[in-house]
């Protein structure tokens, strides 16, 4: 008997034809079930049908009409808001993460344990749970007495410090050999030089991991923009979807265009950084 012992089910090329056909069929069903609806959404954004119950994998009559109509509904503004939030937010988030992680991974100091514990604790405090007091804090920042509600900065700053990003970075930075750092110090490198030209270049794969996770995390934000934005001019794309759908004057085609615009960047980020993504997801096993 010919057995494949590499996998639990032993599926593979040595299986009889009927079993291989069944496996292929199952794979096709999986693709159709999970990716099919997303493809149908994309196709719908380019087709002329205005039936709100209809989605198809095959375009019926290809048109850019929906996209032209979407422009009149301020969709570009929502897209720009989303891109600004994710662009600035991600940059700041990665900077704050690598700085904090450098200290936690490479320095021994009194209080390091408590800091790590506090950072872990913040991961139990997502925007959802803090919703109400968070809006109060954002409307009157302690000491600074600034009101950043109903503004893009209000959607950015609460996301900049992110426990997951710091913890992942600490794990990677711990692995950078001490010898590299010692050599640089012997050459007279200061603290920031060691951080910038020795440790940071050694963890570029980790930058990919926290970059792609941070992007997905910020792009997927819903609660925070919902709490912060009241003027539609400040809506992000995900937030705008609901008001577009609820507007009787807006057809399903425009909603599909906005949904496609909200969907594509995250899919492209995933496909482009798939290796980083899978590495992060199976090593960290944390989401949130």
């Amino acid at each position: 008997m010919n057995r494949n012992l590499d996998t639990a089910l032993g599926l593979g090329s040595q299986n009889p034809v009927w079993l291989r056909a069944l496996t292929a069929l199952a794979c096709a069903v999986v693709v159709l079930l999970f990716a099919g609806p997303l493809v149908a959404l994309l196709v719908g954004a380019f087709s002329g049908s205005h039936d709100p119950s209809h989605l198809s994998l095959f375009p019926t009559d290809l048109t850019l009409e929906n996209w032209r109509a979407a422009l009149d509904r301020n969709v570009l503004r929502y897209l720009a808001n989303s891109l600004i939030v994710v662009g600035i937010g991600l940059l700041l988030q990665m900077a704050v993460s690598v700085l904090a992680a450098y200290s936690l991974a490479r320095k021994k100091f009194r209080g390091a344990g408590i800091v790590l514990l506090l950072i872990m604790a913040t991961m139990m405090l997502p925007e959802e749970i803090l919703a109400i007091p968070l809006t109060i804090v954002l409307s009157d920042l302690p000491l600074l007495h600034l009101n950043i509600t109903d503004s893009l900065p209000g959607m950015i700053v609460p996301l900049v410090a992110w426990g997951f990003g710091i913890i992942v970075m600490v794990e990677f930075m711990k692995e950078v050999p001490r010898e590299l750092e010692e050599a640089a110090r012997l050459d007279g490198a200061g603290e920031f030089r060691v951080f910038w030209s020795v440790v940071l270049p050694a963890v570029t794969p980790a930058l990919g991991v926290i970059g792609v996770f941070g992007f997905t995390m910020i792009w997927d934000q819903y609660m925070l923009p919902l709490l912060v934005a009241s003027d539609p001019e400040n809506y992000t794309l995900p937030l705008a979807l609901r008001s577009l759908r609820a507007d009787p004057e807006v057809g399903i085609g425009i909603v599909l265009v906005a949904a496609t615009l909200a969907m594509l960047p995250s899919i492209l980020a995933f496909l482009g950084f798939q290796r980083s993504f899978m590495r992060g997801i199976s090593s960290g096993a944390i989401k949130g």
Partner: protein
Amino acid sequence: MTVLTRPETPPATRPASPPTRRRTSRREGKVWVPWLFLAPALVLFLYFKFIPMGQAVVMSFQDVQPYLGNSWVGTANYRDLFATDEFVAALWHTAVIAVFQITGALVLGFALALLLEGQARRLWFVRSAAFLPVVVPVAVIAELWRIIYYPTEDGIANQIIGVFLMEPSQWINSPDSSLLSVILVGIWRDAPYNMIIIIAGLVSVDRSLYEASSLDGAGWVRRVRYVTLPALRPVMVILLTLAAIRAMRIFTEVFLLTNGGPNGSSEVLMTLVYQLGFARNELGVAAAGSVVLLVATIVLTLAVRVGSKRRNA
């Protein structure tokens, strides 16, 4: 990892290491350096995590009236909260969603992992395609499923169940099926995530055990039952915990699919807190709801920590 890097060090540097260490300790004597690097993160956490958390606790014991000043009311907010049918119903709905969504996503994720485990390029493609729902924003997924759930006979979900000779359903528009509709979307989104983590776990299953079980004449059912599943136990525990913590604060899906309706049939804890806080302006009661949620999260996390530590010991 330091253990792994050590052999790369030439033996000649060994004797030189004591002076190096002394230099290190002198350098690390600058106590403010680590705190300088940590400062941005700590300040931001203070502002947007710890101060709001403190505020939530304080507000939960207050009658919060913007511009009029808050007054202490003791535990009245908590008593109000637990006395309302809405809160009890929301707790119940959250628990139902958690149990069925987590179980469904874990079973389906496991099945997907078994099917798609392996090195072939074809499998890699199928896995990537199946993973897409995980990375797409929840808001997009909710709008997509609103179309799929369109409650006429032409609706996609109704056409699919029509193949199996089932009557068309109202899905998110009926109190009888609103919770089920939310759960199905959750399973669809979470199963591929579980699949990837389970596949990563499958890599570490000892292949010689497969061989041994095969020599004993065990088929694939017994192999999965007695070799694969026990080996995946730690992975499953992690997945279960994270899913439970996430399920307690489920918001966006419900908010966009049903908004807690119809008739409160799918109201969960977070949609209720949002309602109380922003629609009815009962900030104190809403804060009490948030604190209950926070305490539940902490208790669950610690319980799992303690439980897993005891098992390891």
